[in-house]
């Protein structure tokens, strides 16, 4: 069932790629092939593979672990870039590591300690020692 769905999506992506390639407008003919042919071929391969998968699907075992933990890491990862510039590298990274540490079964206090330590260590290592500028927060650290 999952394979059929994957096949369908692949075929649709392939069709989209071919359609997009045909809309490309080439101002002048630099070479006889142009930018269209290659995406069209790849789109064709995707459609073909999609159909093969739809017609001859195999079993896909979906063995999930405790997926809410992965989701927590994901949400923290999505919020991280939004916080990075406003509150600075150390605070944002500590927050990211705190959530991730909880997701990896840490108790809150050790998680907080290790998160802050990780953030500070990386800041010192990258910003101070290797001279790669990382965003400072409002307090300048």
């Amino acid at each position: 069932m999952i394979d059929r769905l994957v096949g369908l999506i692949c075929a649709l992506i392939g069709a989209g790629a071919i359609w997009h390639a045909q809309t490309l407008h080439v101002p002048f003919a630099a070479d006889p092939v142009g930018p269209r042919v290659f995406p069209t071929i790849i789109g064709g391969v995707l459609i073909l593979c999609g159909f093969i998968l739809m017609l001859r699907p195999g079993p896909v075992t979906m063995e999930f672990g405790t997926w809410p933990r992965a989701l927590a890491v994901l949400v923290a990862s999505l919020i991280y870039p939004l916080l990075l510039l406003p509150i600075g590298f150390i605070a944002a990274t500590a927050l990211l590591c705190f959530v991730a540490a909880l997701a990896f079964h840490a108790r809150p206090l050790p998680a907080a300690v290790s998160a802050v330590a990780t953030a500070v260590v990386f800041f010192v290592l990258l910003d101070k020692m290797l001279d790669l500028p990382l965003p400072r927060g409002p307090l300048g650290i």
Partner: protein
Amino acid sequence: MDALAALLAGFQVALTPLNLAVAFAGVALGTAIGALPGIGPINAVALLLPLCFALKLPPETALILLAGLYYGSGYGGRISSILLNIPGDPGLVMTTLDGYPLAKSGRGAAALAISGIGSFVGGTSAVILMTFLAVPLTRLALSFGPADYVALMVLSFALLGTMSEGKAVKTWIAVALGLLLAMVGIDGGTGVERFTFGSLELLGGIDFTSLTIGLFAVAEILFLAEGMISGVVSRTGNGARLTFREIVYCIPAMLRATGLGFFLGVLPGTGASVASAMAYTAEKRISDKGTFGKGDMRGLAAPETADNAAQTGSMVPMLALGIPGSGTTAVMLGAFMMYSITPGPLLFTQRPEVAWGLIASMYIGNLMLLVLNLPLVGLFARLLLVPAWILYPGILALSYAGVYAVSNSAFELLITTGIGVLAYILRRVGIPLIPLMLAFVLARLLEDNFRRALSLSDGGYEILFATPTSIVLWLLAVVAIGLPLIRKPKLHQAAMAEAGKPGA
């Protein structure tokens, strides 16, 4: 021999203080990262890639570092395989078969020692073979025209499909998706925007570092967070130490595995996982007297040696032809390209300091690794005692810090996470990530050669099949595509089934 003279010049590059320090950092970090459960060579290289660029290291230094990480993690990977029974990457599944029983019976230290020696034998012999084979191979490659390159790349993709676990059609889907992702941005030939959907950020294309970090760091952490991997650390100690007789006893197995591993590593598309599986199966057939799988030294030495020989072997086509033989060498090829260096036949004549400096550094790196991995292996083994909730959040933070350092853009972090989610979904539905990576790196080369060939013939497709070389390569590709339809890749599957676990 001109190879020896060139190698000597390479040593002058590799022995500068900076390059020595970087080689040491590379192999030590590689061993450390490789030792972490669930994290393999490709993750190690991906993790440090952005930092190389952000630090603006000179190309030969950056490549010495990345290569050190690569073969260093081949040494480190055995630690978690033996002590935890958790292979860091598919190439190490075979190491667990005899390694873990040895550790459980109290001979963990001996198991680590013999596998360290095996890694050294495999790694170093492969570097020696590489020294003498690289230049002849480039001579062959010099005769390649654009059409031959197109055929060669299609053959690499086809071999990936044949050798990978699971369905070949999914490998092709991964290849097609990788090629499509690489097309995002401005077309080099005509300046036309493709697949940018009017977004300014996508004009420059998808950044290579974001892609590798997304595929091999973020997605990996998401998987690990679900807690699919767990284990109990065995003690290294108390049992009998490795004796000299046992080492001698394993030497024939190691030499056989070196040859097999190097050969399979050089073939495009087949990586360390196939090599170690075949070395184990072959060694079992030759010397098993009912002891294999219960802690036979040779059953441990053979796959470990083959794994490292194949890793080094897979660098040969990357350097000599510009076509990577494995996922990790594809990442390294991408690194070359970010420095505007094109690996391939011209690398050895135009940038000998890069090519030979790298090869020379691998002699030094393997020696360093022998020291790091025999007396100091306990230090690395102790890494396994660091709790997961300190390690993996740290890896995630380092990944994002690296992407930020190289791009200076918070938006790039969102793209990286997005790629990570895509990679997570792809892995869930059984679409392999390594062919996607390989295709992404080769896309530009493939399209350029394709268009160059067709402009020579003014648009006639017959030119793709015009030379004897290209006809042979196309025929091989057809065989490689057709083979899984007729017969399942039995050997690999049988070996994996024997290991009793899916390739992680």
